[in-house]
């Protein structure tokens, strides 16, 4: 996977990812149009399909709103790469089919706008200057869920 890295800081909470006033909506397109709007009102237009979010520690902290990973999926984010993730968000993102890659040290080697490459099989992220960093590879069952677009599709296909 190749794409542009959009870099954010530590403790990016789910209110930043989708503010509370939009939780009355459930469709991917509407939620995507408000993704990250508290920090960058144009994010949904800048982010292209296949791009990455790179962030610091505790990404996705706060509420259990599944609207947050749905919005990220909607803007086309192919993976979120962070120093660490909050717990409920981790489950929700996997369930809706957004891969989360935990890569301690990632914020030191990636700058906003860098073109990066992610090798899911090898567990390696390559920065635009060629610098490489490892991430914790996802277990096969989780990859399977993600490849099929989320837990519900996975279960439907299994039946």
């Amino acid at each position, binding site marked *: 996977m190749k794409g542009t890295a959009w870099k954010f800081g530590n*403790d990016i*909470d789910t*209110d*930043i990812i989708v*503010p*509370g*006033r*939009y*939780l*009355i*909506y*459930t469709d991917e397109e509407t939620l995507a149009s408000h993704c990250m*709007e*508290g*920090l960058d009102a144009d994010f949904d237009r800048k982010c292209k399909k296949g791009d990455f979010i790179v962030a610091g*520690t*505790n990404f996705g*902290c*706060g*509420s*259990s*709103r*599944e*609207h947050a990973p*749905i919005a990220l999926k909607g803007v086309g984010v192919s993976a979120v790469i962070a120093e*660490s993730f*909050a*717990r*409920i968000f981790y*489950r*929700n993102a996997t*369930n*809706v089919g957004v891969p989360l890659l935990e890569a301690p040290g990632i914020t030191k080697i990636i700058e906003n706008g860098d073109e990066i490459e992610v090798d899911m099989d090898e567990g390696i992220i390559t920065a635009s200057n060629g610098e490489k960093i490892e991430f914790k590879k996802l277990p096969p069952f989780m990859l399977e869920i993600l490849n099929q677009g*989320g*837990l*519900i599709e996975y*279960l*439907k296909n299994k*039946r």
Partner: protein
Amino acid sequence: MPTMSEKILAKASGKESVEAGDIIIANIDIAMTHDLTGPLSVQSFEKIGAEKVWDPSKIVIPFDHQVPADSIDSANNHILMRKFVKEQGIENFYDVNAGVCHQILPEKGHVVPGNVIVGADSHTCTHGALGAFATGIGSTDMAMVFAEGNLWFKVPETNRFNITGKLQDNVYAKDVILHIIGMMGADGSTYKACEFAGNTVSDMSVSDRMVLCNMAIEMGGKTGLVEPDQKTIDYVEKRSNKPYEIFKTDLDSDSLNIIDIDVDDLEPQVACPHNVDNVKPVSEVDVEIDQVFLGSCTNGRISDLRDAARILKGNRIAENTRMLVIPASREVYSMALDEGLIKIFVDAGALVSAPCCGPCLGGHTGIIGPGEVSLSTSNRNFKGRQGSPDGKVYLSSAAVAAASAIEGRIVAPE
């Protein structure tokens, strides 16, 4: 030797014992979703192709976030959820006139010690105050629970906060938990069960213990917990006929990390924008405020209303400040009426609204605009949480909120 989380999860998964790190499938005693996360849960449930929920007596659905409906979209969400309740025969449905989910669940007797409780709301950890294992989940996980009645969990390690000392006047459970979150950081207990123990917690009411557990998520906690005692039993037996089982932590547990906290000299605390772990003593904060919000699943209970009314009685809210009081449930509202508290708030110039989540998550009522400052007794002060991303939210106890409303700036009660 196991922690109380390990004991509860062992029982719920039908095992002799489980250890932190084990992946288990636990049977769920209560599953809660509300008007804001409910529609996604129902949509996922339908996508799975499930027809009937596993047990309509174990699902609780309160409407609390957008009540009464403030837009056609909210009204549509309510219609969708009422239809689901009817079709599935959900026995525990609370419409727009009941109150905030995390007050309704314990108040109506749905929570008893030893239960495993999941809610499609991150503050579900509140219910550990009654000795249950309670945690927030997303809508897809909730759909799985609706269909199967169980869910996979990783058994957490435990951070046990051993809180000792006597709280000074005007220092409350909210100050204790803000102090702990400030100390631990926003990810200081990620994936851990957060147990609150020690003589300070023993001295606290069940309501105060709910304040501690409610905010465990703000340091990343999977759940908050307090070991049940006579106060727990008195609270539960008054409200529930459900059988319960009391579990306590063995202090020699391998998965236990004990953190000692002395609160003898603790001052009232405030969480400053835009993170809950940005905590300072009130004496170090001098900020003018546009809005005060007294309410929420953290501090909208009768004891909070009493604390605030005691300070507000005979006073007026500052000219350039507005105050919004929202009791956490109809029961709390009714008690506040009987005790004359509502009159004190109204006479002081506050707006008193019907039970709901209010401005807490900036989606319904009391939204703040650009440049405005809110002082709130709720649990989160994230950027944009109560409306404009250019607004600021501070968090405090009910007493600090009331004293500050009179002065128009953040102050400690005298």
